[in-house]
């Protein structure tokens, strides 16, 4: 079974992002289809027929807040970078299978698209690592990855 640390979100304000979220802990891609009951009197039987009327998706995740000088922030997206992305700026993301040092070398593209960062929060509990959460709301199509990987590094 594959573990989550090998599948990472890459995020940037420019196309073809190659920078991962530094010290990421969790990440989830969620898709939702709005449906409408399309049954009519011509529909045989009691069961409802449905059709999809809209698609949307979001990506949420969390990571640790590192010190500004931490080496893991180099060539990656820090907690502060994520906070600065909140707003109407169009962001470009990819979800990739990764390998190598710090799991930062792309092996395969799983999905990509554009999104807006719509939520950011931080949790600071006494004696615990400070963590932050983010939510990206999809902006346009959810693109399925292909085998022609544009090879990014950290």
């Amino acid at each position: 079974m594959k573990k989550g640390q090998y599948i990472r979100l890459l995020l940037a304000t420019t196309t073809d992002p190659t920078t991962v979220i530094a010290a990421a802990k969790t990440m989830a891609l969620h898709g939702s289809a709005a449906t409408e009951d399309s049954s009519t009197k011509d529909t045989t039987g009691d069961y409802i027929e449905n059709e999809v009327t809209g698609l949307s998706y979001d990506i949420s995740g969390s990571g640790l807040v590192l010190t500004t000088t931490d080496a893991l922030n180099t060539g990656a997206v820090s907690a502060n970078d994520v906070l600065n992305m909140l707003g109407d700026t169009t962001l470009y993301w990819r979800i990739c299978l990764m390998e190598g040092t710090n799991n930062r070398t792309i092996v395969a593209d799983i999905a990509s698209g554009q999104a807006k960062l719509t939520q950011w929060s931080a949790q600071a509990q006494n004696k615990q690592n400070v963590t932050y959460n983010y939510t990206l709301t999809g902006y346009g199509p959810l693109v399925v990855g292909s085998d022609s990987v544009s090879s990014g590094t950290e």
Partner: protein
Amino acid sequence: MSKIKGQDFKTSCALVADETNCTVTVQGNTEDVTTKNDTAGLFAKDTVVSKQWSVQTDTYQAEVSQLRAIITAFNAAAALSVGWTVAGSNLSRGGQALLNDFTMQFDDRQTVQCQLQFQGTGGLS
């Protein structure tokens, strides 16, 4: 007594592999048809006016090709063959359904998990 275990009750769909849990729901949608002429007091008389069904499945599938297939199916917004099979029972059913919700969970040091939800469109057989 011979009881059916969870591992004998499986979602049947080309998109689903390495399932850990599934929930199937078949529901009758009701309408209260009481009128002023009823003598049942405050009680409703609910009549089933239509039916609907859904399947929710949790899986450990994590191959790149499997994850891409889920997204491709979601984007297509088209009906798929979905059902469930129950070894040793006559409860198996199937029909056409839409992939109306999915979550892929990629957490550090955790097995990748997917949750897929299918909404039936049309009948079960």
